[in-house]
């Protein structure tokens, strides 16, 4: 277990090094001078020079990189070029928003996908299963921002039940929080539900052909009993892999959903910062995303060993 952890830690550090260096260089190649963007068209040349000196964007790149990564290690992401805000509290705040959105979206996806996918597999020979399968196929093809736009049109604009956008932190009252989080979470989760349904279906189909399931039935278990007690756990491994990958992709998908619903999350911060050439903020958000994805992979690995004791013994 310890060796497992160490290898993951090494992987995290290596990924971070590569990712931070890559994003740092890429951002410097991008056209657009952060000083001009920050100060705008009315800034005098002296003001621009003073700004570059103050923010250190006129120094050598290596020094800028080292200063930034040094700050990262101590948890200090620096100060935004544009808003002069401390980035660490801002990013922490935004991670919570996006985290809630993504996890809730995944929860909705799983609550739908596991039963529906299982049923689609069990009924794969009859009309019900084919219908479920077809619906999930269509669901996969729908972009989540479209779901978002449709949800807003129906529930916010036409029916007026829920706000069309914005955010309310759980700490500021749970009722308001739910009203704001529901539509974006459903928009984010619904497409994932369709994708995961397909994986659950094929995993369960696979399991249904396995010998151990036949043995379980031979022992006298009903089909449903065998499937629930032995089948689903075995189907879990591939599904967990997909869930891990999909959570990572939802972090990215959240960028669009946050835009549609005016949710102040990590994605909105990233987009605004790219637009403003707030290079430090962009770097910070990307670094945080990399950490999250690597952590996620680690958790997925951990989940395997919980689901499948054979993997535990092997390591």
């Amino acid at each position, binding site marked *: 277990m310890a060796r497992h952890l160490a290898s993951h830690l090494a992987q995290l550090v290596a990924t971070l090094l590569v990712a931070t260096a890559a994003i740092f260089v890429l951002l410097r190649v991008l056209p657009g001078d952060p000083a001009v*963007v920050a100060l*705008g068209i009315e800034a005098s040349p002296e003001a621009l020079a003073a700004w570059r000196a103050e923010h250190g964007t006129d120094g050598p790149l290596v020094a800028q990189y080292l200063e930034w990564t040094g700050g990262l290690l101590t948890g200090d992401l620096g100060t935004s070029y*544009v808003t002069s805000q401390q980035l660490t509290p801002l990013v922490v705040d935004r991670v919570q928003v996006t985290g809630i959105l993504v996890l809730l979206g995944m929860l909705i996806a799983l609550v739908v996908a596991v039963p529906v996918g299982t049923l689609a597999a069990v009924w794969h020979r009859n009309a019900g299963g084919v219908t479920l399968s077809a619906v999930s196929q269509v669901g996969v093809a729908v972009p989540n921002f479209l779901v978002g736009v449709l949800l*807003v049109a129906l529930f916010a*604009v036409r029916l*007026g039940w829920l706000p069309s956008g914005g955010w309310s932190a759980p700490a500021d*009252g749970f009722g308001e929080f739910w009203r704001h989080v529901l539509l974006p979470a459903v928009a984010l989760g619904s497409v994932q539900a369709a994708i995961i349904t397909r994986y659950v279906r094929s995993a369960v189909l696979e399991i249904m052909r396995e010998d151990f399931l036949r043995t379980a039935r031979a022992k006298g278990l009903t089909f449903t009993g065998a499937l629930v007690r032995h089948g689903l756990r075995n189907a879990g491994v591939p599904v967990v892999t997909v869930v891990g990958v999909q959570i990572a992709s939802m972090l990215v998908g959240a960028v669009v959903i946050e835009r549609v619903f*005016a949710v102040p999350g990590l994605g909105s911060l990233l987009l605004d910062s790219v637009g403003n050439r707030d290079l430090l903020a962009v770097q910070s958000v990307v670094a945080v995303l990399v950490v999250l994805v690597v952590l996620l992979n680690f958790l997925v690995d951990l989940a395997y060993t919980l689901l499948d004791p054979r993997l535990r013994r092997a390591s």
Partner: protein
Amino acid sequence: MQILTRRRVAGTVVALTTAALVAACSAGSSGADGAARTDVVVGLTGEPTNLDFTTTSGSAIPQLLMNNVYEGLVTIDQEGEVQPQLASSWEVSGDRTVYTFTLHDGVTFSDGSPFTADDVVASVARVQDDWTLSLRSKMDVVQKVEATSDTEVAVTLKHPSNSWLFDMGTSVGAMFPDDLSADLATEAVGTGPYTVAEVAPGEHVTLVARDDYWGEPPAISDVTVRYFADANAQANAIRSGDIDMAYNMQAPDLLAGLEQDEDLQVIDGTSTGEVLLALNNAKPPFDDLMVRRAVLYAVDRQAVLDTAWAGHGELIGSMVPPTDPYYQDLTGAYPHDPDKARELLAEAGAEDLSITFDVPTRPYAEAVAQVVVSQLRDVGIDAKIVPAEFPAVWLDKVFTEHDYQMSVILHTEARDMLTIFGDPDYYIGYDNPRLAQVAERADEGSPDQYVAGMQEVARMIVDDAASDPLFLFPNTVVADAALTGIAADATTESMDLTGLRWSED
């Protein structure tokens, strides 16, 4: 200003429904049944990055703060006229170089300190010394500012100026406390009726009314300004009742639907923003007067306005909006005449012209560019659209490097004709030495000479086809029909919220 939708008839019912809806939506509302609401939620696109317009350019900050949080000695009203604000009156000397302002008594800043003549002296000096924006040049004409008593201040100009007093009603005329200890980026300390209560980046800014405001207190005590990433989100919010007023809406296709809604009013206010088809006068092919004129004959501005912006807006024909004192109708200078355009191009030896068209990634620019390109193709100019990410890439490539042939951009600043065409080093590259002379004489002359001189300047620019002002951008406001006192005519960058009031019936 044109009100497009009728006030609704069944006011009471809807007002109560709205009150209930808002009570359900926002915890902070105090809508006791029957009594008019004292809060309002305003939706905007284009969020300010901080609160300091002395070092950060762009209209987002003064839009939010001027008149609401900061005030000047004078202000600019809805007709574009100078009106008293912190100065109760002023006198101008016979040679028009000395302005003596009498200040209101009992005015305090939001930090509690009294507003006196010393603050005026310090505020003007600060523009000259500390402001980092080129806007500071608007105070270059000031020779000295003297506090002759606590409530009287004399400003001496180097020479008479017709534009200076107007500028004092814009952000450069904002009054700050003498001993400024606050960090203006995060804290706004003004004399206005509101203070900034909360800034939630990416979400909203809230303003609350001061209880020690010197003037008449505003009817609305709590203002939430919510910022949206795009006009569609803003439109959804007004349709669903999440916001009470969508200011400066930039989604003309959605307006037709909103106009049908009886609970909403749609107002097309004027603005000082000209959508300019910019031609690089310093580079081929637009260093050739005939080619520039050909473009102006080739472009059908009415069609551009109708197609790209659903007819919301106004043709102006020059860089002068109708609310400026020196406005003249120059819309007839280049009637749509493709034959004439082809003729001029042939004369210039520029048939089968291929150009690049740098289009900033903004809805209005992208919409306009499509129409312009098809009209230019009609006369044999092949314009290739190159998207330029706005602001970063556009500012870098077009504005700073002047590395472009044709572009289109919205110039929002009030009275910006001389900024854009008076400086040969500006990105337009229009170099007319006579212009500066005429403009200077006009500024120093009598008010009549000022108008005549500035009109001459406008005509010179149009005559030389320096660029093509396509249309005046509308300041479109969509609001709950029960909201009154909306200052929809944006004669400066300020969004004046102080007159807002919910109708009682």
